[in-house]
């Protein structure tokens, strides 16, 4: 898969060690040069928030409640301002100029970015998204404690091992093992090289060991690799009704999904000034497909639930040869009525393409 920073060519910095005692200093140092985001806890909710001096990295977090996609594809985003005065001029929204560092991204979420890249890069390039991607340095942090709800391994993710980020961190307990995965990563490390020390051979091995250990801790929600499913022929299956009848039609599964990317566009206008913005939308909402005529092709929960799974497991694959799921498990953990994507995959699993 292609990612913005897949230029892994010739990185000649060996693995490093970041002592946890220096960790805060490390964050401070980054903050001086970059916009910095870290997972922090507030009112019992762990989210990636902009770092301000003294903020602590959320302890014992397994992953952030909201996927990081909203750093690249925010829930509400102004696209441009316009004016209806004689010369109808558009005022482009200015792009990020300053680089930013996003710390502590889990492997599953990193994978989700590569899926979003497919959407926002292919055919029409989405400058808003790409600009943010381009300006972001991602520091991945391997999992040590997978959740009940995790099943990323089914999508080829090594929960302990960071792939596709710019820098990989592995928690060795008293310190982190730091591996540089891209030039961007390299530049960041060079910027504050003094904080790191060289990793000994045994640190490195221990790191590798922990990375692979994590896999063993994984629950086996899906015994094997998730295969793309040929659901089309099951379009009329009664299973959908069964699945949907307890669905509340809320947006949790879609808004918490790292790979969902549907949005709506609308305008605000005052006198002759105005602006156009886009914001997340959810296929689980009844008005998602409501047309001006009043017609609504997906009038019932059944159609909506079916659409969501079909899209993730089938339609998306047809377009990008990828399943639009990374096994982060948010949807099944947070679904108020326990609608479980792994169950769906289970139901239709024999229908491989």
């Amino acid at each position: 898969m292609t990612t913005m920073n897949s230029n892994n060519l010739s990185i000649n910095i060996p693995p490093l060690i970041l002592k946890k005692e220096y960790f805060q200093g490390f964050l401070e140092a980054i903050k001086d040069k970059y916009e910095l985001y870290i997972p922090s806890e507030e009112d019992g909710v762990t989210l990636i928030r902009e770092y301000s001096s003294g903020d602590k990295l959320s302890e014992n977090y397994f992953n952030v409640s909201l996927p990081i996609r909203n750093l690249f594809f925010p829930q509400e985003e102004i696209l441009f301002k316009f004016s209806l005065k004689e010369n109808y001029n558009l005022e482009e929204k200015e792009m990020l100029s300053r680089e930013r560092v996003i710390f502590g991204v889990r492997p599953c979420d990193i994978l989700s970015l590569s899926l979003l890249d497919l959407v926002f890069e292919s055919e029409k390039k989405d400058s808003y998204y790409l600009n943010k991607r381009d300006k972001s340095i991602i520091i991945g942090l391997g999992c040590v404690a997978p959740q009940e709800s995790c099943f990323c391994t089914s999508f080829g993710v090594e929960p302990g091992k960071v792939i596709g980020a710019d820098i990989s961190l592995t928690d060795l307990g008293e310190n982190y093992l730091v591996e540089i995965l891209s030039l961007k990563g390299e530049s960041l490390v060079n910027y504050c090289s003094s904080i790191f020390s060289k990793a000994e051979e045994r640190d490195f091995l221990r790191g590798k060991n922990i990375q692979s250990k994590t896999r063993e801790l994984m629950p086996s929600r899906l015994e094997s690799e998730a295969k793309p499913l040929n659901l089309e022929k099951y379009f009329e299956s009664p299973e959908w009704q069964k699945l949907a009848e307890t669905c509340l039609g809320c947006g949790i599964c879609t808004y918490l999904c790292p790979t969902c990317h549907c949005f709506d566009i609308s305008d605000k206008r005052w006198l002759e000034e105005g602006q156009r913005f886009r914001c997340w939308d959810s296929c689980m909402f009844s008005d998602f497909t409501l047309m001006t005529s009043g017609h609504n092709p997906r009038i019932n929960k059944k159609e909506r639930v079916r659409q969501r799974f079909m899209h993730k497991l089938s339609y998306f694959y047809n377009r990008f040869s990828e399943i639009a799921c990374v096994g982060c498990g948010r949807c099944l953990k947070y679904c108020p009525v326990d609608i479980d994507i792994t169950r769906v995959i289970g139901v239709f699993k024999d229908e491989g393409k």
Partner: protein
Amino acid sequence: MKKNSLSPIIKELLKNGTVNYFLAYGKGSFWFKVRPLIIREPVELKNLEWNRFCYPNLTTYLKDSSRSQDKIGVVVKGCDVKSVVELIKGNQIDRENLFLLQVPCDGTVDPGKVENLVWISKLKVTGFEETGNGLEFITKEGRVSVNKEEVFFSKCYKCDFAPSPLVDRYLDEERLEKNQPSIDNPDLYEELRIIEEMNPEKRSIYWEKQFSRCIRCFACRNVCPVCYCPTCVFDQKDTSWISKGVKPEENNIFHLTRALHVATLCTGCGECERVCPMKLPLMELNLKLIKEVDELYHYKAGVDLQSISPLKEYGKDDYDEFK
């Protein structure tokens, strides 16, 4: 345990056509979750579940059921019955098409609290067992036992269960009186005090923070048994009650309006707060209004079918602080 005594009853009711289908709890994907189960065929009873984690309020599925002529059976806890009362008052259910089967409940467990006690993902909990006055979580590293009062939903401490004439059938009558956690005269509005005592500035900061987290997934609304409007104001396309853009200040329009809309209907089942993925303390809003309504108009929702919501009535010599 109880689920065994539950299924024959449901089976019977399905067989003799008392109900067309039954709303109950089924095995969930996790040990700390149950899944709402709609039983049409006796075979589906195999998934039937009844345990400490049957916190969901199934009556939310009764919203608008008056449109269908189905006869519906529901497994209810004491607190769920209150929602039924409000749904009947709101003409959302035909009493005749309803069969309430009440299961004795002396408290449900809040997985969130469990999570805080034993950091689940660390010592992989595989399941749990009831012990005398507590729960034991079975983990790879051994058993962790907790006192159940520590992990109950706060609403359970305040449980004011009283047998209701609406209930058609009680599962083991004699356990009725044991139907409450052993906490006498609990402080109903405990949670409020902390906030009420803050100074206004702190309070507004507190709420700004909370509201700013809202992602407008509308789970709080959709799960609420008394949010039974076919089309919510906030789903109306032609009227701009709130803009689609997610701004904190507009979030607070949504949440405050919602609190006012369920005022005098909210029975405090706590589902809105339970399902919120961003952990907004929504019950604090509802509870505040429950308190005010109680103090100003001496009214509590869900108690009986007769009394009328004070917002639908008026009093000529109401308390009046306005000039």
